[in-house]
Structure formats: structure tokens, C-alpha cells
């Protein structure tokens, strides 16, 4: 059972290794002549104003919250879809009720304006 995951572990090691070697090669082969002007973060040729990491509009976080809301509910769908046939009619009705509950939250979010990009 766990043996099924061996190729994945090997692939994780190999792919990160290969990408790491590529970065390292670029690091080793390229010239290094840093100047003050060159290493300033790019801002259309001006001197950057203020710090680079600044506060972001809250709507990005709102999307993240919506994503978590939906994604966790969808994770429940996946095992249901696999054993869908074994569960019979009961499983189908059950999932319709689950989706109805999900839709209540969805309609609430829509009416509340959480889906708008304002």
C-alpha cells in the first residue's frame, strides 16, 4: 500500500534536485558584478517609494476565505463520488441535502456581496 507512493517520493526528490541544480548552475556560471543601482527593486526606472511588501486590499483575503469554504465542502464530494454506486439512493438524497445546505451559504455570500470585486 505505502509502496505505491515510492515513485512519488523519488520523483519529488529528483524534480527538486534537478530544479535546484539548474538554479545552482545559473548561480555559478553567471557573472557577479553587483552595483547599488542594479540591485534596487525595479519600479519603472524610479527609485522605489516605500517598502516592497505593503498592505494589500482585503478583497484578496476574501477570495481566500471563499475558497476555503468551497474547497473543504468539495473534499467531501470526492469520496462520495467513488462509493456513489454502493451508497444507492440514500447517498444521492444525502448529497442533494448537503448541496442544498452549501447553496444556502452560497446565496448568503452572494447577497452579502462577498462575490463582488468592489
Amino acid at each position, binding site marked *: 500500500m505505502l509502496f505505491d507512493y515510492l515513485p512519488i517520493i523519488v520523483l*519529488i526528490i*529528483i524534480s527538486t534536485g534537478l530544479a535546484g541544480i539548474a*538554479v545552482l*548552475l545559473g548561480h555559478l556560471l*553567471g557573472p557577479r558584478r553587483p552595483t547599488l543601482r542594479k540591485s534596487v*527593486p525595479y519600479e519603472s526606472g524610479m527609485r522605489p517609494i516605500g517598502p516592497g511588501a505593503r498592505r494589500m486590499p482585503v478583497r484578496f483575503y476574501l*477570495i481566500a476565505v471563499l475558497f476555503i469554504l468551497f474547497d473543504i465542502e468539495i473534499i467531501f464530494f*470526492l469520496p462520495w463520488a467513488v462509493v456513489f454506486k454502493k451508497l444507492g439512493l440514500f447517498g444521492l438524497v444525502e448529497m442533494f441535502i448537503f448541496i442544498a445546505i452549501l447553496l444556502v451559504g452560497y446565496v448568503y455570500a452572494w447577497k452579502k456581496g462577498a462575490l463582488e470585486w468592489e
Partner: protein
Amino acid sequence: MFDPINAIAQWLAKLLAGWGLSSGLVNLILTLLGVVVVASFVLIVDIFLVWVERKVVARFQDRLGPNRLGPFGLIQPLADIIKLLIKEDITPVGADKVVYNLAPILALATVLMLWAVIPFAPTMLGADLNVGVLYIVAVGAVGTLGIIMAGWASNNKYALLGAMRTVALTIAYEVPMVISLLVPVILARSMSIHQIVNMQTIWYIVAAPLAAAIFLISAIAELGRAPFDLAEAESEIVAGFHIEYTGMKFGLFYAGELLHALTMGALFASLFMGGWRGPFVEQAPILGVLYLFLKAMFIYWVIMWVKYSLPRVRIDHMLNFNWKFLTPLALAVVMLTALADKALVEFGVSAGSLSYSLSMLAVNLLIGWITLSLLRSYARIERRRVAAPRPAASPEYSGVAKS
């Protein structure tokens, strides 16, 4: 049966066992070799994807594209790699060095990791996970992490804004994507991609065209390609999250993006277009690799076609499209597919047969028709609202408008 890959594997296994190694160690070595072959094969394909992409965009824009180095410019990507390697490696002031260097590695590695669960041929598959679909969703989400790491660590406003936009887009479109992935899972009654391909005597694109369309649209959004390429809107935020990256680190982002598009093509091919299925594949399983890559390249070409034909969409339109159209549609498709499947099986139509697929197609067409008529009535309301006379700002203004 002509199957050189497995013949070589069996020969190697016999050879290694003859040297006195235990069967566990032999298995480990064979797995290592197989994974190295898959990874290097995919990376070589990735290198030539640069050439494919440049040639195709050139044709779309009525140009010739690279044609100087080698036949048809085939050696161009190798020259590009050498150039990227000997470029100066600049780290901006105030960057978080560890995260900054880790981000491009993550961007390429996660895409490569997706290839672990894609079956290449009936007898050639990396890992036959019984949670293959879940693995794709999970590893796809790690790729988003690489983008936000790049944007955050660069100490650049454009990079941070681009990363934020990409992440907002990626995670928003992940919802309809995962829901549409449920449809093949319901049809095949398994989350293993190998099993899903095995069940497709009739391609699932026949039984589930709407789910396939939703998957393709959200895959394009996931890739951050036009018309969803807000993350790299040149006129607004220059290059987005990889603005500060130079040399090979930028190259890794670029290679990762191209490979991601091909990976999405391969996934689409495996889930909806029968993966390695094709004529004579039972006799010669090696042909499966060819079929898979042909289908993947076709989808890749469709993605490029969309990219070079459509203009960029505004971010609020894009998120509206996702939350208010794609997500409810995907939910409706999944539920009606489940209902239709239950009804068909109840009436004695065996899953996977021709009549089953055609009935599913009819259900999909019905959903599509209802969706279109809903959209049409919404558009009519919108047109009426726009065409209605607007209140004038002031008497002088309306006077000017009349003359």
C-alpha cells in the same frame, strides 16, 4: 505483444537478482530508473516546448518564428538555455534570500511531480494511486505556493500585486476545476487515473462535454494564460511575480509555465479523451505514449489558440464569471450527472456502454441549453437596462446633448 519498456525492466530485474540483490532492493532500483527516465523525458519535451510555443505564436501572428539555428530552428531552445545560464544572477536589495531562491525550484518541481500519476501506456505508469485525482488537486495547490513565495520575497510592489492576483485567480478557479473533476470520478467510480483511463472505452468527452469544457476553462485560468493572464498584465504590473528574477531562475518559471500547460493537456487527455487509448495499443503498449502525447499536444495547441486569440479580461469580470457562472454550473452538472447515472443504471443501461454515453450526452445538452437560455434572458435584461434613458446630470448638459 511488443512491449520494449517492460521487457527491458524484466531483463534488468533478472540481471540484478542474478547479482544476489534482494527483491525489495531490485524493486527500488527499478523504480528509481523508471522515475529518472520519466523525469528526463518530460524535461526534454519541456525544452522543445519553448520551440513549439514560439513557432505557433509566430504562425498566429503571421511571422516565421525561430528558423536560423538548426533545421526549422530546433536548436534555438538549447541556445536559450546556455544564454540563461550565463546571465548575471541578481538578487534585489531587501529580498528574502531563502524564499527567493526556493520559489523557482518549487514552480518547476510541482509541475514535474504531477506526471507521477499520469499513465503513459497500459503497462507503463508511475504510481497507480487510488487517490490520483486528489493528488493532482493537492500538488496543483503547492504550485500556487511557489508563486506567492516569489512575489513576497522579491521586495517589489509589482511582484507582490502580481502574485496576489495570480493566487486569487488560481484558488478561485480551483473550485469549478475540482467540481468538474468529480464527473469522471463518478463515471469511472474510482479516483485512480489509471482506472479512469481503463474505463474509457468511449471517451468521457462524449458522456461529459460540459465537465470537459469547465475543466479546460479553469485549467487555462489555473495556468494564468490569456485571457486570464492578469498576473502578467504588462501594461499594469510589468511582468508580475517574476519581475525580479534573472537568468536561469526566470527560465525555471518560464519552463514551469510551459510544462504546466502540457501537463494540463495530458490530464485533460487522460480524464476526458481516453489517455493512451488508440488503435493497436493492445498489441504494442509503447504506442500509448505516442497517443497520450498527441492528445496532450492537441490540448496544448487549443490552449495556445485561446491565448493568442482573446484579449485580457478584467479581474472583476473574471471573478464574476467564476463565482456566479462556472461554480453553480459545475455543481449542477455534477448533481445531474449523478442523478442521470443512477436513473440509467436503475433502468438497466450498463455504465460505459454506447447508449449510456449518448444518454449522458443528451443530459449535458439539456443542461447546456437551459444555461444558454438563462444567459440569454439575463443579457436581454441587461440590454434593456443599458438602453433605458439615463437621468441627465443638469439642464445645461441635456441641452448640449440635444444640439
